């Protein structure tokens, strides 16, 4: 088994923390996991991505990078950056995308149009029907998205079923040092939201 997860978002959204939470669970489950963060511009409002590769092959060393078209799962934390990452998604891969847009002030001043949820869906649907949009996310978004994702896993990828509610809560307690209670609460809210999303399918 080899699963590639690509996360994209903006500096300050907690992309790296989200990756660490997933990696921690995989590691606790005895799987091999690597993470590659590109976060040079994290403080400066720029694009941040995280590449996670999880495998159960103890004897094989995988490189940490995910090539274009190789991500089984794309977790998008911002509309524009999700679109920018679409080339990483496999044909028929799964995308879970937050309906949150951060419009650069240049675009506001020039009155340029920012892609809507509808336009974004159309783009993704050309590549995969496995698309989930998360409306009205609750802050912190990274944890909320994780909650939604964990509930959807049985529908998405049988090999990721180690990412259970209780396992992720354990890793939140290990990794999140500040406002841990808020994170646990937000995670559960995301999980409940995911349940509603799954029902509506």
């Amino acid at each position, binding site marked *: 088994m080899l699963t590639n997860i690509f996360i994209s978002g*903006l500096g*300050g959204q907690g992309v790296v923390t989200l990756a660490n939470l997933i*990696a921690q669970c995989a*590691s606790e489950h005895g799987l*091999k*996991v*690597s*993470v*590659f*963060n*590109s976060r*040079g*511009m994290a*403080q*400066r*409002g*720029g*694009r941040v991505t995280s590449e996670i590769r999880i495998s159960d092959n103890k004897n*094989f*060393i*995988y*490189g*940490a*990078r995910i*090539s*274009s*078209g*190789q991500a089984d799962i794309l977790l998008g934390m911002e*509309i*524009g*950056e999700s*679109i*920018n990452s*679409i*080339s990483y998604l496999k*044909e028929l891969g799964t995308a879970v995308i937050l309906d949150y847009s*951060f*419009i*650069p*002030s*240049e675009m*506001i*001043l020039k009155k340029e149009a*920012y*892609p809507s949820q509808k*336009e974004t869906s159309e*783009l993704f649907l*050309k*590549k995969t029907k496995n698309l989930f949009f998360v409306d009205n996310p609750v802050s912190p978004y990274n944890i909320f998205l994780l909650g939604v994702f964990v509930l959807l896993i049985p529908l998405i990828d049988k090999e990721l079923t180690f990412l259970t509610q209780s396992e992720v809560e354990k890793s939140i307690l290990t990794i999140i040092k500040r406002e841990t209670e808020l994170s646990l609460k937000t995670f559960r809210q995301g999980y409940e939201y995911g349940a509603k999303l799954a029902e509506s399918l």
Partner: protein
Amino acid sequence: MKKMIIGNQAVAYGALSAGIDIATGYPGTPSSEALTELFNFSQKNDPSPYVEWSVNEKVAFEVATGAAWTGKRAITTMKMSGCNVASDSILSVAYSGTRGGLVIYIADDPGAEAGMPEQDTRLFALQAGLPLLEASTPQSAYKLTRFSFELSEKTELPVILRLVTSVSHAQEMVEGDYSYNRLDREASFERDIFKYTKAGSAICVGQHETLLLRLKQAERIVADRRINRLNCRNCSDSTGFSVVSSGSLIPYVNEELMNFEDVPHLALESIYPLDENIVIKMLKKSERVLILEELEPVVEIMIRSLANKLGWCGTILGKMDGLLPRTGKYEREVILKGLEALVRGNRKRKKHENEPIVETPSIGFSEITGNKQNRNDLPPVSIKHPITFCAGCPHRGTFMALVRAIKRNRMDRNKIIVTGDIGCTILGMNPPFNSCWTEVSMGSSIGLAQGFVRGGIREPVVATIGDSTFFHAGMPPLINAVQHRTGFLLIIMDNGWTCMTGFQPNPGTEERFQGANTRQVDISRLVQAMGIDDLQVINPFDQEHSEEVLSQALLARGVRVVIARKECAITVARRGEVESVCVVDPELCNFCKRCLRETGCQALFVSDYEDREIVKIDTDQCNGCTLCITSCPTDAISTGKIK
């Protein structure tokens, strides 16, 4: 013991395990975390090595060299551009050699994910005549770091350890001892002018001969220690193909070869000098060889010339035949393109010789490539989130004041050349400031500005530089300007830290943040001592005063220096010292968007209020700098609400 760490940290723990006494470096993405880890270790542990963030890479290398010449083990860390700065000394020390293990850790950046030229340090190793090792994973970075000290001491040569971004920033479980194995060597140094000076051609040519002998010795040690592997699970059944990969590409090539047991794979982690024995072994089994390496065809040049020397008449596929690119990071698509060409050529040959077409067991390649990513499905829209100054960054205030001062003097912004420099200050090139015109190398803003003046530009020329960059390489060009009376305006943005690379201390950092036994160097005293014509110090959050000072400095003559002094907003925020944030009174905001237009601050966003739009401030991001207040014509923004 196992820990989840990145490649750079693996280098740090490999060096601790090898018992280093000294570690030096200058920050530079993607290398910085190596020395950061060692610096943090030294602050918390006793015994620990001596660790310093040096003023620049050349000095860092010299400090490490001096220590290595006393018999101690030393490491110095830098990004590839830093190697250019240190190169003058590295080449000289290569000829002299070393006593204690001396390792130069350099991180390269194929794909330029961190910016700057895509240069290939492997070529520098050829130029310097130094062994170069390149790790394929964080785990191998740990092991190779330890081995590089051994190799350095056995050959008496400094050793270059190279990682690329994909490895230096990759995080995985790394097995290591995570402790400091102090060696307790006595420091000693003997006068030996034949070794340690360059006085006279006989000495220099003799050192060159010694260097070449040592390189031969390095090749033998690398072969004995089996650093390079010829992987083949079933080679007796060879199809006549082989693949060679260099460093970071090894695991990706293995991944593609997983289903093709009969393709021998020569995985090179010791790049220079070429491990000729193992290459010859591979060539003897092969008729067609594919060489996979990012950036320049370094391994390819060496293997082609060895093949030529041996009279081997097979086919080599790589970059020099135009098959594979010399730019960018190699994705799976490129690796598959190479493998496909390797296999396809084989079928053609069989056909030509009128033999029955043998379906090679490697047929699966085309199945995979049939699925390959279609380049045309790139998104039709691409959203650019321009990187800008952090919320609360004092540099924003400096560039706002500069833009305002130019306007106040009724000067044409399109004619005022502003040279930029390396680090956060270069973000002045982006909207809304659009100020910086050039970015070349550390300290170059000051030299270039003098060239523009001497070239005959009539309008005032402005150079902009950050504190750390000024200490690193900005002082010699400023002295040059004073000596030759070349007048221009230099703005030094002094925020007390080296921020772009992750908030490392520099000579201007307050002593209380630098660690024990350090001294802060004051830029204002420094530039005055150089003999500049005028010095002004501004607080960039005091826009009125800053604009006034800059508008006069633009019009003045001689070498004018303005120091814009305010600590980095992020370091202040991390200490929890932000006292207030800015808030918008929705009743007063008339949505003129002047704050967005002038500050470009990312804490500002557009929001609905009743039936209209207004600008609001994200209090999580705001660091209370008050610059937006100076832009607001309706006094809608004020400070308040403590976080």
